[in-house]
Every structure is written in structure tokens, then in C-alpha cells.
């Protein structure tokens, strides 16, 4: 089977699964864990069966039948009928009735996303929870992307679901005054997922694929439910700009290619085009935010494909605005590099120097930027030291070889 067909089938299974999960969980007392237990195996079975036998005409009905059978088996074995299983079965029956009468189920997935991004949930668990409940990914794969032990990732997920039930975190759309904050948590979590994928790029052959596509999928799903949120548009735009360069980020033999040396001919114009459109839609609302500004920076970079050069004045300006909204370490480093492009490396270094040492000490991009700018000021000893520090903090072997070469080459 070719890859796009396979992906489409997996996407369909995911779609049906997450829709059912949110429908069932919200009607079974918010018991996400039990709903997931009941539907999870049916989902895994779908992932194995559908690519071989084709997608059933009513995917939800298929999943419900498989899940219900398992739940009944389980009940028979344990010879008890708990109240929560009772509620689950009722919710599943209600879903089945709807599906069989040809009604579409109300899409409750926004509630599911909002629960995963609830402030009462451990920050470290929000993104993993989304990946697990909305995309059905297993704890082991999530653990690999976030670099934690699989056992502790499982524990973190179990604890969060127990909390949702015990603390009765409601399955509902928050009130208008809480809405912006809650949506921001969801957007953050999606972006964390995207970057977890970005970091594992190049290890595809080990099966530890990134989460870029998954994050984009989540953002698209979110946008279907909240089409008028400029930051949600901005986030998808930002991710598509970055994703458009996927083919250019590596040489054919797996070597790392930094943005400024990428061949814009390899960038996907289709994705850039979609990203530009989304950004235009977002800015029409007149409510700028972190993701829109970051997307705007990427849009300037993307313009090199047309103009052949990068407008660093615009980029520097956008970084200045970005820092008003979100003065993260990454924004500060990006700003310093942009300043170096327009006012020279010494000014860029001066900007880098304003970053407190304890923030930067284990941060690889900081040391890359520092090594690069020091080399341009011809301070080769200090540059070597900074590059060395960056290399010692690098995970990706391809990036490590790239930096070793940079350190060895004397010309700026």
C-alpha cells in the first residue's frame, strides 16, 4: 500500500477514535481513563485491520462494536458491574444509536483538548496527554520524544487521568473570561509536540519518528472547531512554514543543513502558500500574538525563495515585537542573531551577553549562536570554546558533525 493511502487510513482511525473517546468520556462522568481502556484496544485493532481490509463504511460503529464486546467480556470475567462500567456502556450505546441512525456525533474533541490543557494538570503531562488521548499514541513513543523513561511517562499519564476524574475537571468549554488562557495552554502543548518532533528529526529510520505531522494534525483539528482564533491560525501557519523546509534540512546522506544554507528550491511552495494564507487570515483580526509573530518571522525567511535574499531588518523588528509578547530564551537568541546581521557581530554578541549565564549554560542553541558570532569577530579561541560547548550539548549526530566542521573552519 502506498504511504499516502496508509496515512489517510490511520488519520481516519484516529479521527473516529478521538471523536468517540471524547463523546464517551464526557458522558461517562469524565472518566477518561476507563473510556480509553475500553476504546483503546478497538483503536489498535483498527490500526491493524483497516489498512488490510479497508476502512469500514461506518468507522465509529466498527470501533464501538469492538470496544463493547471487550467491555462485556471484561465484566463477565470479573463478575461485577461497577457504576463506571455501567455509565461507559450507556454512553457507548448512545453513541451506537446515533451512528446507526446516520447522525453524526457531536464533536466533543475541543473539550478533550481543553481538558488536556487544563491548568490543574501537571504542565509536563499536558502535551503527552493530548498525544495519547487525541492521537492514540502509546506512552513509549511519547516518552522517546520527550526523553523520559517510559515507566515515568506512563505514570505521569495515569496520574493525570486519575486527577481529571478525582478532581472532577469538567468536560466543558470554559467561560469567556477563562477562554484565552485555556486556549493558550492548548496551543503551547501542540507547539511542544511539534518541537519534540523537530528534535528527533534524522532518527526516522529507527522508527522514532518526530511529531511534526501529528502536531500539524492537532492544529488543523483545533482550527475546525475554533476557526476565528488568530493565534490558532498563527500556530498552524508557523508550523507549516517550518515543515515546508523538511526536504531541505538534510543532505541526501543525512547531513545537517542550517536555514541560511538551505536551497529554497527544495522548500515546499504548497505549504508556504498555505502558511501565508493562514497568516493573512490571522492578521486580519488585528489581535497579534506570539505565534503570529513567529510565523511572520518565518514568512520573511520563506521570501528568500522569491527574492533571493533575507530581509534582516524586518526580522529584527519582528523579534523586538516578539519579545514584548514572549521573551523566551529562543526569542532572545534569535534577536541577537538578527542584530548581528544588520549591525555586525559585536552588537549581536553584546545582545547575547545580556542573557544570564545560568539560563544559557546548558542551552545548545545559545552556544551555537555564540560560537558563530565570535568567529565573525575573529575571536577564534573564544569561538572554538563556544562551539565545543555546543557540540558537547548536541544530541543529533548530524548536527554534531556539522558543528565540528564549523569549529574546524576558520573563515567566517
Amino acid at each position, binding site marked *: 500500500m502506498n504511504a499516502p493511502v496508509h496515512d489517510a487510513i490511520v488519520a481516519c482511525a484516529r479521527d473516529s477514535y478521538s471523536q468517540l473517546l471524547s463523546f464517551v468520556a464526557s458522558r461517562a462522568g469524565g472518566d477518561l481513563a476507563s473510556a480509553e481502556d475500553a476504546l483503546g484496544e478497538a483503536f489498535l485493532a483498527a490500526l491493524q485491520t483497516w489498512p488490510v481490509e479497508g476502512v469500514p463504511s461506518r468507522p465509529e460503529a466498527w470501533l464501538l462494536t469492538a470496544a463493547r464486546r471487550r467491555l462485556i467480556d471484561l465484566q463477565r470475567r470479573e463478575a461485577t458491574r461497577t457504576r463506571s462500567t455501567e455509565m461507559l456502556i450507556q454512553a457507548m450505546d448512545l453513541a451506537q444509536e446515533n451512528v446507526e441512525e446516520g447522525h453524526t456525533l457531536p464533536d466533543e474533541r475541543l473539550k478533550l483538548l481543553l481538558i488536556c490543557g487544563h491548568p490543574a494538570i501537571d504542565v509536563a503531562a499536558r502535551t503527552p496527554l493530548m498525544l495519547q488521548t487525541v492521537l492514540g499514541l502509546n506512552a513509549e513513543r511519547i516518552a522517546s520524544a520527550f*526523553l523520559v*523513561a517510559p515507566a515515568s511517562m506512563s505514570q505521569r499519564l495515569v496520574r493525570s487521568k486519575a486527577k481529571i476524574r478525582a478532581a472532577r475537571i469538567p468536560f466543558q468549554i470554559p467561560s469567556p473570561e477563562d477562554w484565552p488562557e485555556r486556549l493558550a495552554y492548548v496551543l503551547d502543548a501542540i507547539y511542544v509536540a511539534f518541537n519534540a518532533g523537530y528534535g528527533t528529526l534524522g532518527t526516522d529510520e529507527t522508527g522514532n519518528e518526530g511529531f511534526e505531522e501529528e502536531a500539524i494534525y492537532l492544529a488543523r483539528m483545533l482550527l475546525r472547531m475554533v476557526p476565528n482564533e488568530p493565534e490558532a491560525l498563527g500556530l498552524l501557519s508557523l508550523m507549516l512554514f517550518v515543515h515546508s523546509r523538511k526536504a531541505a534540512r538534510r543532505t541526501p546522506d543525512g547531513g545537517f543543513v542550517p536555514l541560511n544554507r538551505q536551497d529554497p528550491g527544495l522548500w515546499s511552495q504548497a505549504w508556504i502558500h498555505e502558511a501565508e494564507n493562514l497568516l493573512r487570515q490571522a492578521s486580519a483580526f488585528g489581535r497579534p500574538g506570539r505565534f503570529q509573530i513567529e510565523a511572520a518571522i518565518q514568512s520573511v525567511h520563506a521570501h528568500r525563495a522569491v527574492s533571493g535574499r533575507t530581509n534582516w531588518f524586518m526580522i529584527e523588528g519582528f523579534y523586538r515585537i516578539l519579545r514584548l509578547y514572549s521573551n523566551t530564551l529562543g526569542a532572545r537568541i534569535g534577536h541577537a542573531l538578527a542584530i548581528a546581521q544588520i549591525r555586525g557581530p559585536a552588537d549581536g554578541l553584546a545582545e547575547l551577553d545580556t542573557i544570564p549565564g545560568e539560563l544559557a*549554560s546548558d542551552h545548545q542553541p545559545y552556544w551555537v549562536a555564540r560560537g558563530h558570532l565570535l568567529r565573525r569577530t575573529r575571536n577564534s579561541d573564544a569561538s572554538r570554546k563556544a562551539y565545543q560547548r555546543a557540540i*558537547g550539548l548536541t*544530541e543529533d549526530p548530524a548536527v554534531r558533525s556539522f558543528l565540528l566542521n564549523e569549529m574546524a573552519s576558520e573563515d567566517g
Partner: protein
Amino acid sequence: MTYALLFHESAADFALREDPEKAGAYWAAWSSYIAALGEAGIVQGGEGLLPPQTATTVRIRDGKRQIHDGPYAESKEMLGGFFIIEVPNLDVALEWAARAPSSGYGSTEVRPLMPPMKQDPS
């Protein structure tokens, strides 16, 4: 928490150490990593090991000494060196393990150290 980072490398990886073309990059990667560990101030100790063919293994069986040339067991990857680090938790230890050059070609094992043994009162 104190953890051991155990760097496992294959025979081909050990051979890189002497490869005239690739030894430079091999050692540069390791020395950068070791420097970064040092800067982080978490290292309690650690050493690199010479390749497994320099190993000699000793066993006493039925009161008899058995000495054999080579490592304790032939396996695809062998211990090439180790560090003992003091970090707040396993997640941080995994982060440092991921940065080890051996993680990119061989593997890096993270093991918590045993707590200090109770001393007999004397």
C-alpha cells in the same frame, strides 16, 4: 540522585579511535561532551576504557582460576567508558545520556548508583 552513564560501543566504533580519517571527529565529539559535563558541574568521576581486546577476564570455578583473554562476554556492544553524575532526577540524567556521542552510534545506559552501604559499628 547519583547515576552512572555507561557508554556502549561496537567493535567498529572502537576502531574509529585509531582510524586516521575519523579519529579526529571521534575524539573532538567526546572531548566536547566531557567539557560540557564538566561545565555543568555534575561529574563525580569517570574514565574511558581501552578497547575490549585489551581485557582479561578472571573467574574462580571449583576453587580453580580460569583466566581468559578478552571481555567477560562477547556482545555486539561493549563498555567503552563511564561517568558518575549527580543530577536531580532520571529525566536530567537521560538528557545528558542523549548528548553522549555513543548514543548516536552505539548506546548509553543510565543506572542509578546503590545508596551507600551501612557500615558495621566498630
